[in-house]
């Protein structure tokens, strides 16, 4: 069978200065040309001769895959991995720099609910407008009109301008129009992260209908692993603009969720022979991955003299250098405290990643003889490690981005 979508060697290049955002103004260019005529001429000549060393960035590179008719493909990856760029190319919003995509059928894309909704127009009018923007024919919209209204549950407000709608009504109507698109292929980006829980269930149900009963082909980008698992039979994992993994959803998701895949495990070694002391001379300070995907902090040191007041551990700082906590080896119950011996010791503890938010954290080795002297005084040039946390630990599908707050613990709730 011939694939319905064939993606061959797709690449997309951006110039970094475009990426940085901010608009160029003609005024700036003109004033610049007058202020620094020489450098202006220089860059212009370089431009023309094509020897300019512009910083380029490949948002996608060498992407190849095929999709068969009726398949529901999930696309996952971290923020900035290239998912959105891929969707934008597939839905023809932006052209690729290299490669070719062949699609055997009509494509409808839903990168945002309510695209083109006009606040001044009524619900009825917006159904037609939005439908037309999404590529539906007027007669098809008319045919499905009642169905759309019923699904959105807005019969009473059909002739009210949508600016008076509650956000829930607005989203319901928008999703409903989109869900009734009649294309062979549907491209969907993260739309389920809208509406209340009940409506989300309804949306997921509708999506299952579309895929299973109507046999349509769907590409579905989401951070919501639950939804991906529920809907998609195959999944593509994208990272750094390339396909990292493509296959059965179960396998891909499992690999994706094992955090250590693309985490860099930093390591410090005492190469300069620093921090000489009898109580605790550090040799190595590093993060390691445990069997069950947990991350540990490890501290390897030579001890010449045992002191029962020795406290060593680490301090954890957030991106803006706010101290989050200190942890020492003596913190646990008496029986849990690791026993130290003369010679080489390796002490370790699990990093509680489940309480951390997205972002870069710094781990600093600290310690000393309690109430007597610092061996590793905080912020005095101790060994540090950084760890990048990406919120794959979050199981909620309503929160796909970084949460407000220094911490983002996953806490379970109950109904009493």
């Amino acid at each position: 069978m011939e694939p319905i979508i064939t993606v061959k060697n797709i690449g997309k290049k951006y110039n970094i200065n475009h990426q940085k955002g901010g608009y160029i103004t003609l005024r700036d260019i003109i004033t610049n040309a007058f202020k620094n005529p020489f450098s202006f001429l220089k860059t212009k000549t370089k431009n023309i001769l094509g020897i300019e060393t512009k910083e380029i960035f490949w948002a996608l590179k060498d992407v190849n895959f095929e999709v068969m008719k009726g398949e529901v493909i999930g696309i996952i990856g971290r923020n900035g991995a290239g998912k959105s760029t891929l969707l934008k190319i597939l839905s023809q919003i932006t052209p690729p720099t290299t490669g070719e995509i062949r699609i055997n059928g009509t494509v409808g894309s839903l990168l945002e609910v309510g695209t083109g909704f006009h606040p001044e127009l009524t619900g009825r009018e917006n159904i037609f407008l939005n439908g037309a923007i999404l590529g539906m024919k007027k007669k098809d919209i008319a045919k499905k009109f009642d169905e759309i209204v019923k699904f959105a549950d807005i019969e009473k407000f059909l002739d009210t301008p949508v600016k008076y709608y509650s956000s829930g009504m607005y989203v319901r109507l928008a999703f409903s129009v989109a869900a009734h698109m009649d294309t062979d292929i549907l491209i969907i980006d993260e739309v389920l992260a809208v509406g209340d829980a009940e409506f989300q269930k309804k949306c997921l149900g509708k999506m299952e209908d579309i895929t299973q009963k109507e046999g349509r082909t769907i590409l579905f980008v989401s951070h919501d692993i639950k939804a991906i698992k529920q809907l998609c039979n195959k999944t593509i994992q994208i990272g750094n603009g390339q396909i990292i993994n493509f296959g059965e959803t179960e396998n891909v998701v499992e690999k994706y969720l094992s955090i250590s895949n693309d985490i860099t495990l930093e390591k410090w070694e005492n190469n300069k022979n620093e921090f000489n002391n009898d109580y605790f001379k550090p040799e190595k300070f590093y993060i390691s991955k445990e069997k069950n995907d947990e991350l540990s902090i490890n501290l390897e040191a030579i001890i010449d003299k045992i002191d029962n007041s020795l406290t060593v551990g680490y301090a954890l700082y957030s991106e803006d250098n706010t101290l989050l906590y200190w942890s020492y080896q003596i913190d646990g119950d008496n029986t849990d405290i690791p026993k130290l011996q003369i010679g080489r010791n390796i002490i370790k503890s699990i990093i509680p990643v489940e309480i951390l938010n997205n972002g870069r954290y710094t781990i600093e080795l600290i310690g000393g003889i309690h109430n007597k002297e610092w061996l590793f005084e905080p912020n005095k040039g101790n060994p540090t490690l950084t760890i990048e946390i990406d919120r794959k630990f979050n199981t909620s599908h309503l929160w796909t981005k970084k949460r407000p707050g220094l911490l983002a613990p996953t806490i379970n709730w109950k109904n009493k």
Partner: protein
Amino acid sequence: MSNGHITIIKPKKLFSLSDLKEVWEYRELLYFFTWRDLKVRYKQTAIGALWAIFQPFMTMVVFSVFFGGLLQIPSDGVPYPIFVYTGLLFWQFFSSALSDTSNVLITNQAIITKVYFPRLLLPLSSVATKFMDFAIAAVILVGMMIYYGYTPHITGLLIIPLLLLITFMASVGFGLILASINVKYRDVRYALPFFIQILMFVTPVIYPASIAGKYSWILALNPMMGVIQSARAALLGTTVLNWTLIGISLAATTILMIFGIYTFKKTERYFADII
């Protein structure tokens, strides 16, 4: 399976005939965009469609009092109000279509970055919207012609669609170029109203082209001069219809239009990325 519809996505070529075919396939959306713009505008203003009449009418009254009455600007032997209104009617169609077209990519960026459709529809629909205003405002002209007792001859009436076509191509062609610049350099749009105003004074809207004497051919480089001059000749019989002038205007706007589409297509390749 899919009624043989095949889409191929690859690095964009500059221009191909299939682009025009695509515009035709999406004609319903063109209709919806125009419908939306009209509907929204008439909903937002209290006097609705009357606004389309009010604006040129008041301009005509003010111009007639100051330019026609006090300044005694010649008007090729016809009453100044009807002379200036004919000019204003075409000029406002051109200038409002031009300024709308130039901003069309910015005002619709939310849609452009989220859905695919032939981008050319946007400028086309903004001109279509302005054409509706033209049609409504033209009612006043008909009234004035009856009042002043002018009957256009048949060739005169037949030439009007051609003049409208020229105006359409001039505003779209020029507008597409400005729209492309506008996406890249965001300060251009602030200069635009000023630029359009200047343009009005070098077009014989409030004065007859004959005022320039033997240099009036210079004015002919401006396609809108040919349109306005011919409209007056056709409807009011100010002069004999000058076919060479119409020919020049037609040729100039055709080139302008092709160049406009070319520029637009060239920018189209990357404007979803920078918008």
